């Protein structure tokens, strides 16, 4: 029997999985369009509501507060939903057929996560560009650092989403779980409005939500305060979540699928 030359490596396998996933995403123009319009709609239709509140937000510019929030929202909630695609792939037998290949299990996860990160970065860039004519003022370095932080956050949540999808293997179980998690996390993170507007008890509750600190960290990057404690907290917590998400995801992809 003829054996193929063994040229598997994590990097090469990751590239194969990434390129395949990216191609499938791009081939579905509906998704690309929805993925790009949604953040824009937030900016266009929700942003103006915040403009009169600028004074209370403690900033001269509502978009400087709002855009970082929407970026984090994209990073978390966009990524959390990628598991639906994996459930469909699992049902079609794709996950299993990839698992009988010698390809690295890490690559099967990493390739998909990288696709999600690229999609996220494109969405985030469009978001920032659209906000500029509306009045967003932020230093370029800050915006780039913020996008990097959001990409890391997105990678963490997309790994978690894939791990949960492979655990539950059913949209009917996955959807309610996401809904149960997403709403309270969203409301307690100060994504739409800063928690500084909240009464004391609500602020106290939101303090235990790591995502609130990530949002504030991204806001301080938009502010140009790169070395502030808030920025460091945001980075530290994001790294911690990325490590946890990665551990969970790899574990699930390695484990046998029974």
């Amino acid at each position, binding site marked *: 029997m003829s054996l*193929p030359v063994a040229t598997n490596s994590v990097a090469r396998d990751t590239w194969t999985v990434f390129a395949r996933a990216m191609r499938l995403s791009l081939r579905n123009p509906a998704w690309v369009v929805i993925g790009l319009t949604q953040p824009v709609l937030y900016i266009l239709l929700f942003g103006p509501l915040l403009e009169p509140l600028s004074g209370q937000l403690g900033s001269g510019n509502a978009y400087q507060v709002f855009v970082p929030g929407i970026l984090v929202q994209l990073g978390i909630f966009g990524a959390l939903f990628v598991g639906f695609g994996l459930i469909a792939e699992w049902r079609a037998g794709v996950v299993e057929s990839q698992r009988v290949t010698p390809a690295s299990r890490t690559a099967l996860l990493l390739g998909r996560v990288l696709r999600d990160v690229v999609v996220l970065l494109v969405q985030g860039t469009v978001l920032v560009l659209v906000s500029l004519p509306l009045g967003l003022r932020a230093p370029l370095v800050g915006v780039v650092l913020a996008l990097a932080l959001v990409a890391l956050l997105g990678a963490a949540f997309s790994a978690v989403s894939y791990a949960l999808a492979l655990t539950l293997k059913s949209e009917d179980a996955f959807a309610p779980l996401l809904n149960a998690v997403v709403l309270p996390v969203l409301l307690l993170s100060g994504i739409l409005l800063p928690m500084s507007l909240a009464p004391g008890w609500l602020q106290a509750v939101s303090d235990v939500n790591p995502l609130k600190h990530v949002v504030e960290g991204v806001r301080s990057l938009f502010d140009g305060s790169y070395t502030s404690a808030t920025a460091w907290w945001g980075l530290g917590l994001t790294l911690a979540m990325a490590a946890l998400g990665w551990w969970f995801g790899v574990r699930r992809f390695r484990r046998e699928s*029974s």
Partner: protein
Amino acid sequence: MIEARGLARTFRRRKQEVHAVTGVDLDVAAGEIVGFLGPNGAGKTTTLRMLTTLLTPTAGTATVAGCDLLADPVGVRRRIGYVSQSGSTQPEALAGEEVVDHGRLYGMSTADAVARGRRLFTELDLEGLWERKPKAMSGGQRRRLDIAMGLVHEPGLVFLDEPTTGLDPQARANLWEHVRGLREERGTTVFLTTHYLDEADALCDRILVIDRGAIVAEGTPDALKSRVGGDVLTVTAARADRAGELARLVAGLPGAEPPQVHGDRVVARVPHGGSALVQLVRELDAAGIGVVGVESRRPSLDDVFLGLTGRSLREEGAPAALPEPEGALQ
């Protein structure tokens, strides 16, 4: 090609231990087509998933394609092809791209994977479908595409899980041709599971019968059938009221087992169908009993299965050992 000893798998379901496979010994030689026959829930898929590294056995050892299943699963994966019953391609992807990406995951270069994929499409009657989406293919085409996926890296050993389930008779016969071709044209060893007797009979050099997680018999289809002993004799009386007399005559044939009477039909197993038939016709003549049909047939694998397990393979409602774990859920 495959050598397994005491392969077993226990699942834990709600704190209960379920013994899906209790200890399978099997040997498959290079170039053989071996069928794994058993009803749903017998442990076919679980055994297959262990041999293909998808499930870790809870006990036992195996060497698959020259690599130790437990010590070198990656080596096993590199050398085998697996065509699962749940498919292998994204409905929205292009067929050719799926095959090429699959080849790349086996370490092939894109150029090699394209060349090999194109050739497989020709061999498997998938010409012109390279840029077709699997969702727009017929069931038979999709199965052949799954097989192309499983063969892209030219494995010497291929596992096919229920390859023809859900196909129409024409597509099944066509797929059988392709499976035979695998062995004839490239000497591929094929290990397939099926719960269709005709499939095992038509396709396999050797059959392993599995029931309730253990192998209960093995041999060539003919050897298994001869184990049942003799042929099945069916005689239909011209008048139903004379079926009793007819049954007494049949019972008197040398070596005949007690006949069963179904209305005007009498069925009995006899050691030698041919000679029994001749003798019976003479006696019927002498007794003046009219018959409208006499038939002697070789036992089918269903008779074999019934003889081995006391259950018919066709009884889908038979108390299965346990629900087939994962993958059987469709």
